[in-house]
């Protein structure tokens, strides 16, 4: 996409942030990569989108992006969700980068709540938007306490919480933001991705960066690092499965969204990863409702 000289965003530095700020963020990223899973405090800035709408992820992207990058942005797995569209437009405008929906073509993928179905490869960076970086926050409200718990590797409280879940529900009833242990040292929030995506984090070839703008923390999982979802021997970790297949592409192994079709309970299940689904359909895979209008590609207005 070419530069648009008279857009308001062009009054700002390349990729919006000033160079000093980018340098500060890059230093935090390097520290985060050096201590996998450790939350590095950083001088998070106000961004032109609200806190909670991806300011951490946007700052990470702004700090690492260059004109040769190819940028993909997804929300709930899809490229066409409104906030993903808004953030993608932002970088197309302030960083003059090519944008794509193709997971394999992207060098930087910014995401909220999902990891793409297609495995990532070396050289790619997956940037997570993180609302609450502290995995223990739900159990302990005080930052001063949780920092000490991480320092002493004191994670008993987390296991007690999982046990209580088993005692109450007969299973570990955690569905998104399922706690993980990184490199067998730091307890880490995977951000609110469904636990379906947790196994994709371990031994990944790509760099996983996590940015929490409002909470002012950056953390990371370097390539080929162990990420273990907490569980018990008699209650092993398990991911979500569906009885249905994707109604559009017939996929049996992807995370599905439920789409309510009318007010009498009719529903269909479709891949949450919109690009994954579109590629499968292009390759000839057909689901039971393949001609539904959700399958129609939307073109970006000029």
């Amino acid at each position, binding site marked *: 996409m070419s530069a648009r000289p008279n857009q308001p965003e062009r009054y*700002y*530095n390349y990729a*919006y*942030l*000033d160079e000093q700020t980018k340098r500060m963020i890059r230093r935090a990223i390097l520290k985060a990569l050096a201590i996998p899973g450790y939350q590095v*405090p950083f*001088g*998070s*800035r*106000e*961004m032109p989108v*609200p*806190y*909670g*709408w991806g*300011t951490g992820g946007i700052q990470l992207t702004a700090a690492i992006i260059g004109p040769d990058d190819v940028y993909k942005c997804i*929300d*709930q*797995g899809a490229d*066409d*969700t*409104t*906030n*993903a*569209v*808004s953030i993608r437009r932002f970088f197309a405008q302030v960083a003059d980068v090519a944008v794509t929906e193709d997971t394999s073509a992207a060098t930087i993928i910014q995401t*909220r*709540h*999902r990891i793409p179905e297609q495995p990532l490869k070396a050289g790619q960076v997956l940037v997570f938007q993180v*609302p609450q970086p502290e995995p223990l926050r739900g159990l302990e*409200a*005080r*930052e*001063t306490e949780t920092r000490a718990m991480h320092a002493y590797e004191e994670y008993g409280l987390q296991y007690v919480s999982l046990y209580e879940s088993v005692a109450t*529900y007969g299973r570990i*009833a955690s*569905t*998104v933001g399922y706690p993980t242990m990184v490199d067998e040292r730091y307890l880490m929030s995977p951000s*609110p*991705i*469904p*636990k*379906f995506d947790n196994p994709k984090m371990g031994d990944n070839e790509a760099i996983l960066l996590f940015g929490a703008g*409002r909470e*002012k923390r950056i953390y990371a999982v370097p390539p080929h690092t162990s990420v273990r979802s907490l569980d018990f021997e008699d209650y092993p970790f398990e991911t*979500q499965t569906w009885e249905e297949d994707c109604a559009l592409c017939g996929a049996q192994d992807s*995370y*599905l*969204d*439920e*789409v309510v*079709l*009318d*007010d009498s309970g*009719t529903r269909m299940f479709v891949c*949450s990863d919109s690009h994954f689904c579109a590629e499968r359909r292009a390759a000839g895979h057909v689901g039971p409702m393949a001609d539904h209008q*959700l399958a129609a590609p*939307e073109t*970006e*207005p000029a």
Partner: protein
Amino acid sequence: MAYVAVKGGEKAITNAHRWLAEDRRGDPAVPEIDVAQVREQLSLAIDRVMSEGSCYDRDLAALAVKQSRGDLPEAIFLTRAYRTTLARFGASLPVETGQMAVRRRVSAAFKDIPGGQVLGPTFDYTHRLLDFTLAADGETPIEGALQAEEAQAYPMATIASVFAHEDLLEADTRTPEAPEPFDLTRDPMAFPAGRDQRLQALARGDEGFLLSLAYSSQRGWGSTHPLCAEIRLGEVAVEFIPDELGFAIEIGEVTLTECQMISTGAGGVEKAPQFTRGYGLTFGHCERKAMSMAIVDRALRDGVAGEASAPVQDEEFVLYHSDNVEASGFVQHLKLPHYVDFQADLQLIRRLRREHAAREAAMKEAAE
């Protein structure tokens, strides 16, 4: 059959922006409001935006108020997102509020104090009756305020100087070798927070939040028994030492509201009983905010980490939740799609319900 739309992000956003612009403009038959009009006639809105936006620029604040359609937290957000990108060329010298050109100064501690009580432009003592002459078309005649017969003292004595002889009020602790003050716009919140960090957070904090906290303290939730020793409003000079010169020059002036709250301190074995202070300072004329800030500042001094008995004394609670740009963004992010998360919850609930039903059925069977 009702259809639930889930697609259409691109076009929807573009069109929503257009609609927003239309709504901002309102009825085109009514003349468009000018930024200068906002700056001059909605000046207290400007003051709040400058204070909580941490950026002293009346024109920028007026533009933000206009663009945000009068939504002040939105205007504060616009201002913050702009100021954070500005290059920093240095820090001014600390301003001297003791040297303020005072427009208003009142003390509730003494009937009269050196320099006198100066009411200045205040809503206090107005009757809150709608003035329908303002709604009438055209200029409303304004009777100018009268000039004082006696020139006002300058500099206006501070409440600290009034107390100075008896050592009744704790003194400002000023170390000449003090390190650079903490800067929340560059460093994340850290605990325990120093007073510099606390005061900066409160100065940027949401007026409504601080007001309610201060009020809760007054009602007994961590009371500090505050008394308004002094409020002053006026202009102070801003001085700066450019590297090229090596001495201070005046680069402008800013309007400030300062509030000194005092509380009775019991003292201790080593320390004689003394009044203690809480401090509030804002850009522009933000009296409600400055007073609330001073009460909260004082209340937080009571809170030993982890042992605070009331919300207002709890440093982590107050400082982490006072920023309205952070709070507004995060609360409103719940509007963003969460269907991946919700699907996970749905799945779990359905599964738990199935298991529950199976257990019930098994129990029933066993009973029969």
